[in-house]
């Protein structure tokens, strides 16, 4: 299968079940909501080293936020349901509570699994906190030097999918980056999915474990590293000078699939087709992750 001359390899992305919450941060201006969201999602690229994965999902208009102010929606994911409340409490407490003018709302209010995030953070109020129940939701008002910080008492948690991916194989790094940037632009507006890595792009894809260092749980994906092609069992055909990966986390498989389709289509349509050679995906032979995203069937369907 080819798309604008770019080979879509007959392979699949392998992804894992995670747990996710959606946090909607509002503020006086979108700028301040985004400031908090950027801090909240900082150092949250991969559960391998960051304990969670997080990213900005999208901007939320004033008509759709509980307080009518501009908002930013964030998804935060962990591998297990026990650690998600911990990550939320420590991150919201340090990044959103501290940020001027912000308030913090649950973005999954109908999810039956509830995490007592605001309930835990309320004690920062040192006994001066107060709660309000509005339209069936309990909020905590935490007094701060600027005024008050408002946060939902509980946040919803649901199963999610982490580790969706595709690889852009190009003749050189510039072509790979241009294609990856186009893919990110195409994915960013889509709901229910985040790209947790810097700018949405990964240059250091990893394999499980190490050939040399026993303690390493992940090391460089030498099969896709062009500089190692003569030295290892390379997966790269001749002429590939650079590979970039797009990693996607989503609230469900459908969101990942939709985003992969949009991203791959954009990556193949940069007008640089001669320098983008193929699209591949990372997997573990189908043995580790329950969610499989076959590239060709995704691109064949609408």
């Amino acid at each position, binding site marked *: 299968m080819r798309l604008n001359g770019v080979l879509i390899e007959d392979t699949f992305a392998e992804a894992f079940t995670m747990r996710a919450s959606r946090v909607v941060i509002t503020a006086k201006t979108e700028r301040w909501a985004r400031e908090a969201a950027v801090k909240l999602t900082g150092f949250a690229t991969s559960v391998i080293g960051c304990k969670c994965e997080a990213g900005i999902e999208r901007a939320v208009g004033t008509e759709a936020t*509980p*307080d*009518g*102010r501009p908002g930013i929606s964030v998804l935060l994911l962990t591998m297990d349901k026990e650690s998600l409340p911990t990550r939320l409490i420590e991150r919201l407490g340090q990044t959103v509570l501290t940020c001027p003018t912000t*308030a913090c709302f649950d973005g999954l209010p109908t999810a039956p699994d509830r995490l007592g995030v605001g309930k835990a953070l309320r004690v920062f109020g040192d006994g001066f906190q*107060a709660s*309000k*129940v*509005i*339209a069936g939701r309990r*909020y905590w*008002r935490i007094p701060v030097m600027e*005024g*008050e*910080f*408002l946060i939902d008492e509980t946040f919803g948690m649901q199963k999610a999918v982490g580790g969706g991916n595709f690889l852009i194989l190009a003749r050189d790094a510039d072509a790979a980056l241009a294609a990856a940037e186009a893919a990110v632009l195409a994915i960013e507006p889509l709901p229910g999915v985040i790209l947790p890595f810097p700018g949405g792009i990964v240059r250091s894809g990893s394999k499980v474990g190490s050939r040399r260092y026993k303690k390493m749980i992940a090391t460089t994906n030498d099969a896709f590293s062009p500089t190692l092609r003569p030295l290892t069992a390379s997966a790269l055909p001749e002429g590939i000078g650079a590979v970039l990966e797009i990693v996607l986390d989503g609230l469900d498989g459908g969101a990942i699939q939709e985003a992969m389709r949009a991203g791959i289509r954009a990556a193949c349509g940069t007008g640089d087709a001669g320098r983008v050679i193929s699209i591949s995906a990372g997997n573990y032979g189908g043995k580790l992750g329950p969610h499989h995203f076959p590239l060709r069937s995704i691109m064949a369907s609408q």
Partner: protein
Amino acid sequence: MSDRIVLTLRQPLTSALDASRIAADRLADRTSAEIAALPLRYDGQPMPLGELFRVEGERSQHLVLEGDLERAAGIATAQARGTLVIEGSVGPDLAAGLMGGSVLVQGSVGPNAAGALPGASRGVTGGEVVIRGGAGAGAAARMRRGIVVVMGAAAAGAGRGMIAGTLLIGGRAAPPVGRFLKRGSIIVLGGVESDPLFPYACTYRPPHVRVLLRHLRATYDLSLTSEHIGGSYRRYCGDMAELGRGEILAWSAA
């Protein structure tokens, strides 16, 4: 089952009616015949509801009352669920001891609206009461939880002994307001006199007021402006003769 039950007053009331049995949840599971047979007390005498009201609909959690009910007392007493809409004004003790659901009054209400039952330590413990007009003395007295809205003026004693919950007064609040207030919030849009038992704290934009007013505007189509929603409020803490954890938030300006 109907989409709603409508009780229309047959003739204007000339004496006091004890309407404490009329509540959305109490009629929700009844047929129209059962509703009509419900005993009320009118002018001190027992009388079936059907002699006073024309009954339309049955088995619905949505109840509508039509007619001049200013002589009817205790409508929606201790209601726990369902929605009640009153297309006019009502008398005293509306929604006393309300536990849940909602009560919307298109007109004004008498004294002790959303208050407590005689001898009860708590008034409203849940649900929402919205009054488009004004309220008599003692609105939302001893409220423990819930939301009470008086879009018009509130007579003296509003929020007396409130334990928690929120009272919103759209018009002017006559003194005293919030006497013996423990933890609740009284939000006044139309002006309130200062009270030495409620010392001034600061002027700010309380974030929960935004959420509350947007909810009320969307749910009940209340005339709450963006200046109210996004405006500044003077915060007074009190009642200092009590816990002092309550507040009066007086709308200041946009």
